[in-house]
């Protein structure tokens, strides 16, 4: 009985993860603007990988394997959002036509940084 519950749980989690991967791949190909694409890619890297790996952890034979898989999940949750944050920051700092795509505050990040450097 417990085996069946584990199997069903694993299958559901894996299928959900794969569906999210598919959606994120579609998003990367269909979106035109860099920040939208980055959002789609980051969703696959966090939610998709997270669901797939949690599914694997549920079906793991012993506790240590499951713990290792959960460590991998934590690693992904730390690294993928940070990398997409860096991409987004690069786009915001370098694109001079930013106000075409989003509401921009008067002070951009680069200006803030320059002011900080002048103060220091």
């Amino acid at each position, binding site marked *: 009985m417990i085996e069946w519950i584990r199997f069903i749980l694993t299958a559901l989690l894996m299928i959900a993860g794969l569906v999210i991967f598919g959606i994120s791949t579609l998003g990367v190909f269909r979106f*035109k*603007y*860099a920040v939208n694409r980055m959002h789609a890619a980051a969703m696959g890297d966090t939610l998709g990988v997270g669901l797939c790996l949690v599914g694997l952890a549920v079906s793991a034979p012993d506790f240590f394997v499951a713990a290792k898989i959960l460590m991998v999940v934590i*690693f992904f949750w*730390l*690294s993928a959002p*940070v990398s997409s*944050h*860096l991409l987004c*920051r*690069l786009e915001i*700092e*370098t*694109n*001079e*036509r930013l106000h*075409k*795509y989003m509401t921009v505050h008067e002070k951009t990040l680069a200006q803030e*940084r320059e002011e900080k450097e002048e103060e220091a």
Partner: protein
Amino acid sequence: MREKPEGLLKWAHAFSAFMNAGDERLDNDLVFSQVRDADQDVYEADSYEQEWAEHEQEEKQEVIERLERWRALKGYRAARRAYALLCVTICMIMIVVLLYTVGSLPAYGDPNHPINNEVSARYIEKGLQETGAVNIVTGMILDYRAFDTLGESTVLFTGAMVVLFLLRADAQSHKYSALAQTMKDSPHSETFYEPHRDVILQKTAMILVPVVLIFGVYVVLNGHLSPGGGFSGGAIMGAGLMLYVTAFGFASIRRFFTYKTYQFVVLIALLTYAMSKCYSFYTGANHIESIIPLGTPGAILSSGLILVLNICVGFVVTCTMYAFYAMFRKGEM
């Protein structure tokens, strides 16, 4: 009008068109269309690039002048002829030696050839007993064939040296210091758009860098027990150092890792590797029992010299990976 390709070439063209379909889509992309019709004058009047071109022209002129002066020297022709002769002779000798060696090798895929039966059977049957390494691959590459691995480490070291020669921007040299200063100060300098003092990246790196480094150490130290070893562990540790540099900048990594540290660590590691291999060659050739115990297979302190060799390779690979990254990105360490 381009001619229409035929046959197999047509398929290759169609595939290429499919792979480059993104280019056509970029044409309609807002980003480029807007960058295109603005900013033309800004980019055309780029004084930095003019300066760079002038500098390049000066350099070229200087090289040409030096060549002319050299060509006017007395023994130039004779020296050049001797050099060409020497080159051809050495090449011919190498070709003859290699051809002779290939001729005396057994035929490829010969079933009676020891490599195809005896050697691999011996590795599998007696590998654990003779090397003490549970991971048979590590036992092979760091014990039976450790000489090859020494060569690989040396190749990596030589590669790093060549990259240093080619890409290092020497701040001390009076010839390059003005240019290096211009590059550092200019708004188009290479590091201008790279993240510096990004709080999110720094906080994450504070968590991730120690974890990555410890994982690398684990992979290196468990090389004789589980998959992994010096090369993969070293690459992981090198990636950790790269993350550290990206987050905290070159100024803070220089507190513990400079060019001098790199030289010291790599030289000590290569020398230790060569010395320990010398020892095992000496004992093996003279049929002396090695005094280094093999230990119980499966324990962390087992398999004799393999652990030491793994650590040495790990150090070399870590330092070299980081050196490659620093050289390519900045031109100095």
